[in-house]
């Protein structure tokens, strides 16, 4: 079947770059090209002894965790409102919140740079990146959480209230457990986006770079490339683990709500 053959070829195209990562990460040579020179774990060792990298990783983690939490909280509000009774202009409001999804990231970066540095005269730092990352993660959170809320029968909460719970009690006891998997996958997805985001971070990072900005710096030094490969290998492994958890949670959520699986994250 030609279509299946094409699909497999396409998957190879998708995975080709990632497959090369570990190969060069363990290659005992500074030039990133075939033929391979032999096996080494030296590049991973170098990662451990580079304080600048550790600093960058720390920055990235702070940014990613904060962005994920804030974006998910805001996303819960928006997604829940999205399922509720409509009012004039609601589509426009939600559309505007979703706008960063189709806005070139450089526009977000530039506009925040102008306001923070030029207009307000504040120094750049991790917080400026967090502000921007929340903005670009929010649409993804809303998309994921919409799925979680949409699978929810509206009369569930009413039933809880009918059985004596307050509005908040109904949300906590019924809605929250049912959308919990969606929340987890929203957190993980924003975390992953933020951790990997470069275009905005490059514009908005202050004196201490985030991990992608640090990697960008390394790419200019050929002798550092194997280290980048080693770092990339770890990141890919980490992403796969996080995404697998996110996907498992999403499926569990569907099962819990008694729904059929219909698709992926978006």
């Amino acid at each position: 079947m030609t279509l299946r053959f094409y699909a497999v070829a396409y998957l190879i195209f998708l995975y080709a770059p990632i497959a090369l990562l570990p190969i060069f990460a363990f290659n005992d040579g500074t030039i990133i090209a075939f033929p391979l020179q032999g096996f080494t774990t030296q590049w991973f060792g170098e990662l451990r002894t580079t304080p600048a990298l550790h600093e960058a990783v720390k920055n990235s983690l702070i940014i990613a965790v904060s962005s994920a939490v804030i974006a998910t909280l805001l996303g819960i509000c928006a997604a829940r409102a999205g399922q509720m009774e409509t009012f004039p202009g609601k589509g426009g409001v939600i559309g505007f919140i979703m706008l960063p999804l189709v806005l070139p990231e450089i526009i977000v970066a530039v506009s925040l740079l102008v306001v923070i540095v030029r207009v307000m005269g504040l120094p750049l730092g991790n917080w400026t990146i967090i502000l921007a990352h929340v903005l670009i993660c929010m649409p993804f959170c809303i998309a994921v959480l919409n799925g979680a809320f949409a699978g929810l029968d509206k009369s569930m909460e009413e039933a809880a209230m009918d059985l004596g719970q307050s509005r908040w009690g109904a949300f906590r006891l019924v809605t929250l457990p049912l959308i919990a998997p969606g929340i987890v996958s929203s957190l993980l997805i924003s975390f992953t986006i933020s951790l990997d985001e470069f275009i905005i971070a490059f514009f908005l990072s202050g004196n201490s770079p985030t991990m992608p900005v640090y990697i960008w710096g390394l790419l200019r030094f050929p002798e550092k490339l194997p280290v980048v490969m080693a770092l990339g290998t770890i990141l890919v492994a980490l992403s796969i683990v996080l995404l697998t958890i996110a996907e498992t949670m999403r499926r569990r959520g569907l099962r819990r709500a008694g729904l059929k699986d219909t698709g992926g994250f978006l």
Partner: protein
Amino acid sequence: MNELIRLRGIHKFYGDFHALKGINLTIRKGEFFSLLGPSGCGKTTLLRTIAGFEDPTEGTLSIDGRDMRRVPANERPTNMVFQSYAIFPHLSVAENVGFGLRKDPRSKDEKTRAVGRALEMVGLAGYGTRRATALSGGQRQRVALARALILEPKVLLLDEPLSALDKKMREQMQVELIRLQRHVGITFILVTHDQEEALVMSDRIAVMFEGEIGQLADPETLYRRPVSKKVASFIGMMNFLDGRVTAEGPSIAVEVAGLGRCEVPAEQAPGGISAGAITVGIRPETLAILYEGETTDRRVVDGVVDEVVYYGDMTYYDVRVDGVEKPLTISMKNLIGRPVLDVGAATRVVWDARSLVLLAG
């Protein structure tokens, strides 16, 4: 005296849409009450107003003498069985049934026993540990019932509870609901669009159209003496003929198109009429076909069979009668010795003035 719920002048607007147009209604203690009407007539809105999920735009609602204004759903002495049942999928059957007992001061053991009794009452003893998502439609319905009844509400509200079930299951649940209501003695308010369901189950029925109550009566009155053409055509089948009132009194003299002049008891005009043009309603089962060799002392009119629909136990005939605009629909039991007539057969139709309903307009 034994009134439980009192609705006065209830109006509900959604934007410009007038969903409830001044509902006045009193529901008694311990009765099985139905809100019947086509979809969009406001019956569910009215039920949700009683439950506290909708605020009336105008009007007052009191339950057991207490004004329900600003009383949220969770503090009202009502419990609801939702159309979708709204069984919490993350909880077990027992947890679902015990959901409303969280603030109950009883001990954990007592609550567990209460849950067991509730499950037993709806025929689900031993199902407590099952996952709610693993239940069939009929079982979910029972869980929803147990979950609502365990709180011993003054009123149980049922929003189209049988619409998701197949025909057999629906008929079985109708009987069980009646039995359950008699057993617990709680007022049940049922919302349904199924007239048969309402007739079978209810002590009294309010028929609603476009946000208003068309008629409020017990099933028999509703069926035999509908007050309007709308009610008459919504409930059961009815032939409509043109008529003219010629004299009023304890019995009303009417000239019925195609059937002739007759005297109708005044109670057969429940909606009230005035002299002049009216509509005369006749139920198909109050008409009969006079077979060869049969005689009757009632009035007879000649007709020709226009259409035959065979149902097994019954046959529905459309019979064309001179002077009657639409063919008369007649239902006949398929008794032994009664052949099914063919289309085009000349026949005679028996009718009785006592079974006519006189309707205004």
